């Protein structure tokens, strides 16, 4: 995790320095704000990863390791799920409501709520509803 953290922090610091130079030189605050915001977007997660990398040490993927060291459970992967599709359709209707009028919300919003709850419940059960 060390390299990952360093990458983000380095990017953030670089962009931050650019932001400061740009801000002082141009006095154009829109671009300066975006640069500083971007810098923070790199530095914050970077620091978080750094903190983690200290706590957990090198993982098998951070050093020389044999496959056997990584054997076992990696993660839970849902085999298939209808909720992404439902959520996507819900979001689509919400966006169409922006164009064609609010009645699209009547379909979109319930669909979004339904899909988000469905997906959450599915995660609680440990993913895969279809069984694989």
């Amino acid at each position, binding site marked *: 995790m060390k390299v990952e953290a360093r990458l983000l922090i*380095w990017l953030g610091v670089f962009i931050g320095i650019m932001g400061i130079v740009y801000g002082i030189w141009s006095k154009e605050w829109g671009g300066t704000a975006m640069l500083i915001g971007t810098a923070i977007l790199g530095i914050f997660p970077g620091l978080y990863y750094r903190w983690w990398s200290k706590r957990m040490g090198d993982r098998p*993927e951070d050093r020389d390791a044999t496959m056997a060291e990584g054997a076992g459970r990696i993660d839970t992967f849902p085999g298939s799920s209808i909720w992404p599709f439902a959520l996507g359709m819900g979001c689509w209707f919400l966006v169409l409501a922006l164009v064609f009028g609010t009645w699209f919300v009547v379909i979109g919003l319930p669909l979004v709520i339904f899909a988000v709850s469905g997906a959450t419940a599915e995660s609680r059960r440990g993913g895969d509803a279809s069984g694989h």
Partner: protein
Amino acid sequence: MVDTLQPTTEHAHDDGHDEHHGASGLLNWLTTTDHKIIGMNYTVTSVIMMLLGGAMAMLIRAQLTVPDGGLVSLAKYNELFTMHGSIMIYLFAGPFAFGGLANYMVPIQIGAPDMAFPRLNALSYWLYLTGSITMLLGFFTAGGAANFGWVGYAPLSNSLNAPGAGADLWVGALILTGFSAIFTGVNLVATIFYLRAPGMTMFRMPIFTWNMLVTGILILLAFPVLTAGLVMLYCDRHFGTHIYDANGGGSPVLWQHIFWFWGHPEVYILALPFFGMVTEIIPVFSKKPLFGYKGMVFATITIAALSTGVWAHHMFTTGVVLLPFFSFMTYLISIPTGMKFFNWIGSMWGGQVQFTSAMLFSIGFLLTFLIGGITGILLASPPLDFFTHDTYFVVAHFHSVVIALVIGAMAGIFYWYPKMTGRFLSERLGKIQFWLLFGGGLLFVMPGYLVGLRGMPRRMAVYIIDPTWQNLNIWSSVGGFLMGISMLIFAANALKTMKTPKTAGPNPWDGHTLEWFTTSPPPHHNFYSLPNIKSERPTWDYFHPDAPALTHDDHDPSHVPGAVKADAQ
């Protein structure tokens, strides 16, 4: 469901393992969370978008063969170039790279069973698909599709100048595809940070994966800005705010700042994946390791960092931006980019180069991108930009770049098609397609540069009656049509090979990276077994145990090329 990574030894299941899950085809398709199927969906959808955007380009080029062309009305022409540009940028180039090939290949290249968030990945695709449909719906509304250019500049995009539903559909589509891209960015970064196989350290990742990591980070930095900008645009259009409205105390230039703060990193979000692809392909078909692995990684990161500080080179002529800053930063980017070119050439140098279609397309990518890059450096000089801004010189410049991307896309498709389908595309058709696409591309852009220097403005359906201008335009159109034909050949090739026998086998190219270790196409969750990973070429190491060890840690004497590998399996 709990997944277990198989230990390293050979462990051959029979095929068909991935057949027995799920019900009918359509339901399967709607509910899939498999990154390979989602990646295929993305690839196919985005190629269809490219063909649609290409068809519009054909209309545009046909219109411009005569100065007073009456093929389409002035108003329709505005819609055509807006939608052509928007489809190509928002719906083809990005989604093809980060949603399509990266989605498919990145997990496999790092030895992972899937993306980190499979359901989020599926959601990305649905948002992309619905966003694409939303944008295209504009053509079917009374007022027609969006017509203010793919950049949606204020005040052209406000509710007075673009009152129609087509404009709102454009805004809505970009909000949908924007979230789609952000979710894909999250997925790429999380997958690469957390799901690498043991031994797959950051500096052993394939360069394509590295490039997709940096692309993912750039997406996360850039796209939220665009989405926020679009929400404000919508508010200006409908809720009476005056954020981009000079009359109401707002600032039209703010939109340009926001748009290009996304827009220039976007250029690299589009380009880095293709850089990554050709960096995989060139060494494989030169039978050599990549020259300068760490330099490549460093160059990619540097390009990304610098790309956030150059946005206003698109705004030189507004008169309100800090010219020296943006000009200088833009020049700086050419340093890491030039480094990449040296490494690509170094990777071919002295190798046994095999001119397969994938390799030809990769070389075509380099040459075409080089032309776009060099004219880009010219445009980074404010005096030259003042002279050529909004002329066909600029159109020719960025088409040199984007045509390179199309050529790079073809390189990626020809390289990975056997992995994704188990079948080969026809090499013969591939080579014919290459020469038409590459030659047509050059023929299309070169007259554009010339007519641009003579002052022909972009985004115009008619131009002054001048034989030189018309001749240049006709040549340009011929080039465009040749590219169109090359795409038809590609479509024929893909259809023709759909039913051929699966003869590719796991590793047809003697590849370097993990995707060539598994079956073609890979099984559900990608691997039956994995080799030990000791370098950035695990598959190659496995199949060539006696070859000299390779590592980029040149300072370590036991690792210099020529030394015998310390622990051959």
